[in-house]
């Protein structure tokens, strides 16, 4: 007996079409693309050279010549925002990467093994958690010296327990399910079950956490730069731009408004993107927003 089993599979094209119909995903994706494009463009071209100081043009209000105005050294704020995007995105992306790459396996391992391994890992987690992240990041950069790379590492380390904890909690909720028991009855190892069943089911959770951490990463980088431990001058960063704008808020508000807006818009876009991806990956979602 032959059964008709040739059925077209869902291809990548239809998934992409589904994704673009999802409004919040499309909006988030578009804006993220715009920010990333702006950062990429800054490698090739910026309206002005940010290393050149033109004191005569200092603190100019936004105009057709300087869209976002100029700062106290006469540098073009738009150009600085563009270059600053590089720094902020790179720091946040790598920091989230470190957190996901190390935290998720640790969390899944703890959940799968249980007992002493679980206990030890989670207490270690608590230890890292016990220090305020920013304070410790300041400590790390203070020891190893300020700079973008050290900022990335410092922020990354504090992402590890966040992801470990979320992954573990998510995995623990999945482990007692009957389909896991069925997979065990099918002789699958814990590692394989984690890979095949646990991870896809906690992916949404992790994704949402990742967008939050990404946003926090940008803020953390901004904060580190703000206290002078992030990107070093003359390399602009959104955080340091805010710091420098602080004392001139009344005089030249555009110095603060534009980098601030850049942070807000990027974070918002990432949140929309994360929500959208979570929705699209869920086979049950038939919602159109």
């Amino acid at each position: 007996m032959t059964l008709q089993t040739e059925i077209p599979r869902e291809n990548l094209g239809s998934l992409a079409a589904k994704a673009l119909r999802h409004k919040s995903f499309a909006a988030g994706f578009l804006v993220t693309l715009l920010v990333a494009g702006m950062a990429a463009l800054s490698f090739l071209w910026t309206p002005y050279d940010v290393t050149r100081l033109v004191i005569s043009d200092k603190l100019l209000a936004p105009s057709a010549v300087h869209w976002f105005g100029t700062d106290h050294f006469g540098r073009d704020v738009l150009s600085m925002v563009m270059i600053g995007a590089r720094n902020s995105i790179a720091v946040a992306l790598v920091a989230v990467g470190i957190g996901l790459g190390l935290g998720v396996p640790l969390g899944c391992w703890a959940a799968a093994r249980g007992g002493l391994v679980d206990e030890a890992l989670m207490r270690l987690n608590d230890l890292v958690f016990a220090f305020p992240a920013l304070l410790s990041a300041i400590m790390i950069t203070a020891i190893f010296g300020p700079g973008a790379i050290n900022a990335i590492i410092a922020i990354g380390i504090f992402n590890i327990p966040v992801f470990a904890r979320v992954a573990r909690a998510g995995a623990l909720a999945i482990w007692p399910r009957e389909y896991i028991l069925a997979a065990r009855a099918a002789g699958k190892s814990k590692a394989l079950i984690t890979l095949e069943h646990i991870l896809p089911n906690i992916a949404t959770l992790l994704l949402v956490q990742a967008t939050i951490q990404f946003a926090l990463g940008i803020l953390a980088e901004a904060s580190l730069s703000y206290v002078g431990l992030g990107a070093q001058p003359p390399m602009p960063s959104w955080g340091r731009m805010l710091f420098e704008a602080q004392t001139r808020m009344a005089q030249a508000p555009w110095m603060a408004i534009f980098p601030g807006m850049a942070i807000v818009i990027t974070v918002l876009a990432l949140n929309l993107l994360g929500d959208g991806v979570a929705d699209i990956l869920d086979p049950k979602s038939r919602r159109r927003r």
Partner: protein
Amino acid sequence: MSLLEIENLSLAIGNRPILKDIDLTVAPGEVVGLVGESGSGKSMTAMTVMQLLPFTAKAAGSVRFDGINILAATEDQMCALRGDDIGMVFQEPMTALNPVKTIGEQVAEGIRWHTKAGRAEAEDRARKILDRVGLPEARFPLARYPHELSGGQRQRVVIAIACALKPKLLIADEPTTALDVVLQAQILDLLRDLVHENNMGLLLISHDLAVVTEMSDRITIMRHGEVMEAGETARTLSRQVHPYTRQLALASMHVPKRRSFFPLEGEMSPKATEGVASGSKAPGTTEMSRSGHSVAFSPSRGETTPLVSVENVSRLYPGRRTSFFGRGAPIHAVDDVSLDIAPAQSVALVGRSGCGKSTLARMILALDNPSSGAVRFRGETISNRGEAELKPARRDMQVVFQDPYGSFDPRQKVEKLVAEPLHLLETKPSQSERREMVAHALHEVGLGPADLDKYPHEFSGGQRQRLSIARAIITRPRLIVADEPVSALDVSIRAQILDLFADLNGRLGIAYLFITHDLTVARAITDEVLVMHEGRIVERGVTNEILDRPQSEAAQALVAAAPDLHRAIARKIQEQG
């Protein structure tokens, strides 16, 4: 005069019609049963009376309770009614109580809210009603938390909350579905007594025709949001005028046709068992043929080596932590159990919830290890073995779970899900082979190849249970352990799935271990019964003999409590004439 009068009630949520022209009345002191399968609109009818509907719901028609027009009542008026004049008991006692509040607080809460009574007075009344529902303060102090109570006790608390203010109408939505038969009988007795004492009206919602028949004076049968038939219980069920009533009654009493496994004779024509099978005959004849069958069946199997043998197996769980270092006495979940299952034999393991059935099943499946004793599969010990050594045994034993919703990974497609046990084969099948095998297994359980690329949520409960069975038979196992495989299903679906089990047993010679608290299931498809009580097997033997003449106390309690439609109808006819 009626207490609750529903006339021409129609309900739509969004653009989807849910209820159509529902007529229903409940008089004081009367028990009205509302029966139907899932999705028939029973619960929605109850929710309309309570006005606990989703915001997008639109109701038309008339619902009058005690002279009040419910559909026009404001939220404030409803708040005053709910919990005071109308009480409600929900299905799931595990989630109907707030886990961070004591039972005393939860019962007193409603009393204080509605009567503006002081803390002490409310507590006093809470104490009285808890005592009334069978939770005397001496043994169950008000300061207990829900997790310290068993399922049946929690349901008593839920009933106490609903009845604390002596409501005129009590709505019980599947109040015993999550409980075992013995607890079910107790809770039903309690509800019946409360109705008599307070002259309450009771709207009892259930999918179980036998339960409703036993309890109710009048019965309303619903399907697809419409009333199919309504009337006095005895008359409605003895005449069965409406075809759907007959269909429902037949399905409730359904006994699958079974044939013994003789590989040479067994023709391999897979016949889909769709629709409510008409296999059920008068009870006397089926019983005779079945007992004749099992007598011829069992002894011949006894001589061969058993497929599974469980030898003096015990499983201890560490006791509750009593202090920082100390623990209480360990709990014997399974206590010195021995049993054998012969190839192609179908065995039922019956017992009340918490008696250790599922723990024993897990040890037989080598998903848990016994504290002492050993489980052998085809003569080889499978307890305390590594996964690699277990592979051959795992290939030949599979599992079907109770919950058709929880037993599939929602993120994977059917093809991958059903193919999961193929992981156990020595040579991995190619992708097209795999697809072919899965399609075959689906075909065997009455599903089509078009289902391969669907996700589990696209299937109904019954279809998912078929998927579950397809997954279990794909490696052609010798043993399937089924843990309450039909208790979450509607009666007509249940009949189909039981037929499928019986059919596979006949065609493929698969041995079953059926874990159940439902004796009708045990009677329907098993040769032998093991009765388990508090971790021990207290009685064993041929199914019909045990169920007809139980010897042990535990078995007697189970048999006495099991709802039986024939018995219930007969009793109703006597009562109502």
